[in-house]
């Protein structure tokens, strides 16, 4: 099994945490992993993206070739469209948050952004911020998104739960529980809407 994933968002939205959870789950399955990210300037509210590749066979390139990504996971709707040239036109899925992060002079009309997302044959779009609040942790929108992406990652759902328990192991029990709930709410949404 091999999955090439683009993670997208705005600096500070927690895409690296998503990568850590998927990465941990993949390593538990004895998979190979390569993850490339851009640090530096982008943390000041600029766009950020990460290439995450997991595979049972050794991985060559740190970067995913255009048109080869199985999945784009985005914590922000406009950002979900920024990397479409990486998405496989035949099989690729796009999973995105619907809550815009508007820190720009000219954020495009959100209706038009939505229209572009809806044009894609395979996508899951959800209000992760709302679901995160329902889970009791407004900061866990990224984990909700991960939950919604989990059906496409080729790993059993429990593996992501285990990974969250591990990654957040130094946090209070309630934090872990809220994140597990966030993960589940995202997953439930995806299951109902694919």
């Amino acid at each position, binding site marked *: 099994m091999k999955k090439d994933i683009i993670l997208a968002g705005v600096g500070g939205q927690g895409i690296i945490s998503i990568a850590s959870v998927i990465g941990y789950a993949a390593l538990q399955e004895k998979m190979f992993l390569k993850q490339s990210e*851009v640090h*530096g300037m982008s943390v000041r*509210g600029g766009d950020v993206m990460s290439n995450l590749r997991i595979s049972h066979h050794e991985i060559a390139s740190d*970067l995913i070739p255009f048109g080869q990504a199985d999945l784009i996971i985005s914590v922000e709707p406009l950002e979900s469209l920024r990397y479409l040239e990486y998405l496989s*036109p035949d099989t690729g899925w796009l999973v995105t948050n619907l809550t815009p992060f508007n820190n720009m002079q000219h954020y495009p009309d959100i209706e038009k952004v939505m229209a572009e997302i809806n044009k894609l044959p395979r996508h899951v779009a959800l209000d992760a911020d709302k679901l995160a609040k329902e889970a009791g942790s407004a900061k866990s929108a990224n984990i909700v998104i991960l939950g919604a992406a989990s059906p496409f990652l080729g790993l059993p759902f429990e593996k992501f739960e285990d990974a969250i328990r591990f990654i957040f192991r130094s946090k209070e029990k309630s934090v872990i529980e809220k994140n597990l709930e966030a993960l589940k709410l995202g997953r439930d949404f995806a299951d109902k809407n694919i």
Partner: protein
Amino acid sequence: MKIFLFLLRYIHTIIMANKLLLLGDEAIALGALDAGLSGIYAYPGTPSTEITEYVQNSETAKEKNIHCSWSTNEKTAMEAALGMSYAGKRAMVCMKHVGLNVAADPFINSAITGANGGLIVVSADDPSMHSSQNEQDSRFYGKFAMVPILEPSNQQEAYDMVRYGFDFSEKYQIPVLLRITTRMAHSRSGVVRGECREQNTLHLPTDLRQFVLLPAIARKRYIKLLESHQRFIEESETSQFNMYHEGPDKSMGILVAGIALNYLMENFPDRVVPYPFLKIGQYPMPRQMVEKLVEECDEVLILEEGYPVIEELIRGYIPGKKKIRGRFDGTIPRTGELNPNILAVALGLPNTKGLSIPDLMVGRPPQLCSGCPHIDSYLALNEVLEALPKGRVFSDIGCYTLGALKPYEAINSCVDMGASITMAKGAADAGFVPSVAVIGDSTFTHSGITGLLDAVNDKSPVTVIILDNATTAMTGGQDSAGTGRIEGICKGVGVEEAHIRVIRPLKKYHAENVIIMREELNYNGVSVIIPRRECIVSVDKRMRIKFKTKQ
């Protein structure tokens, strides 16, 4: 606590099936720790910063008393490391590519003095300029200094090359340059650790005049360097990092360096390349291997990240018989980072394509955090300068460079660290008054102090605004060398005390700050204004740590 940490590390190792998942930067740091490092010297700079931070956060470094605090700039870092090498211990210097410009003087001369304890200089290049002013290629410096260069193609090699580099450095008494690029620095993959070895004991060079570069000695040392260079080429011929791979299809031969190897392999899903190829990870170039490839193949494709350094070498000036393809003939774009698709096209393989990006897409440039102290400084400065013709604010490199963008558009230059003060001085010398410099506290101590001294000595009419946010924010909030001592430094350099003004960059003091700035701008001499308020990201980080330790 210690046992807990040990357990954590233990679990960590197991889950990765004996492999640690490390960034290229982290692999270099761990490689150095395991190879008996005694000190790391660095000034932060993307994408090199995480090397030093890894050592700073490591328990081993604390236990073994390994030097790892930040240096004031890359030149001081390079020289301190050379001193540690003189004393017989292993030292590493880390910087981003432009840092090597700052450290160039000691770096070039260290090739003449040579090393004693193992000395590695890590320079991290940034092709595509993800967060830099240019995309210069550090291999030029390595070649210029005539030192060996190591260039890893993956994180495991990055780890292994450090030990190899220290050994090489000690064997030939020469500093070794380790060149990485952004993608190597900031990409993670599995690394298997080697054995840990002890640090060197103190031991001085056998010839105590080795480091005295008086002309008579330097001439001899230079000849020794030229002789050693022959040995370096021989080492490259047999190095584990340079590999010749046979291939049946001789219509093309490939010369591939560093991380470009991964993109090459990506294009052959079964990982079998039909062409002969030479993988380069150690310079100077292995001449015989190159000759074999050129002789054997009809044409040669050169794949390297950064400038066409190898390509220029192979092409030379006189046209050869063989066709050489690379960045010069347009096979590969002349600028920017490589990727698997660029290589697919160069190899004549079908290119893959994804979906197209909708027309509505717009950029999301980075910007100053809301609540950032620099915002209040710029709002005041803009108000003071409103009545004057535009274009008189020389600035520098840091978070505050984002003041060039909308809505502030407050600055007119950003060239190299420290250039704000000296450029403002030069413009003032030309009669352009008032002339303003805006510089961050860390940039000021990095390279601003000497320029301020020039201005003081010439009594140049410049106003220098030192934005003191008590940290090196742009690169992630490292300690700033002059925190708490900025006024003292300015006074020491000779700025009149009456014209060193500390202000609070906050909305409620805006009117007051405008008045002070106006007064100093009207002063016909050197004045310094220090807007002082801690970076809010750094306050936030401090509070979180405090909260955590309380718990």
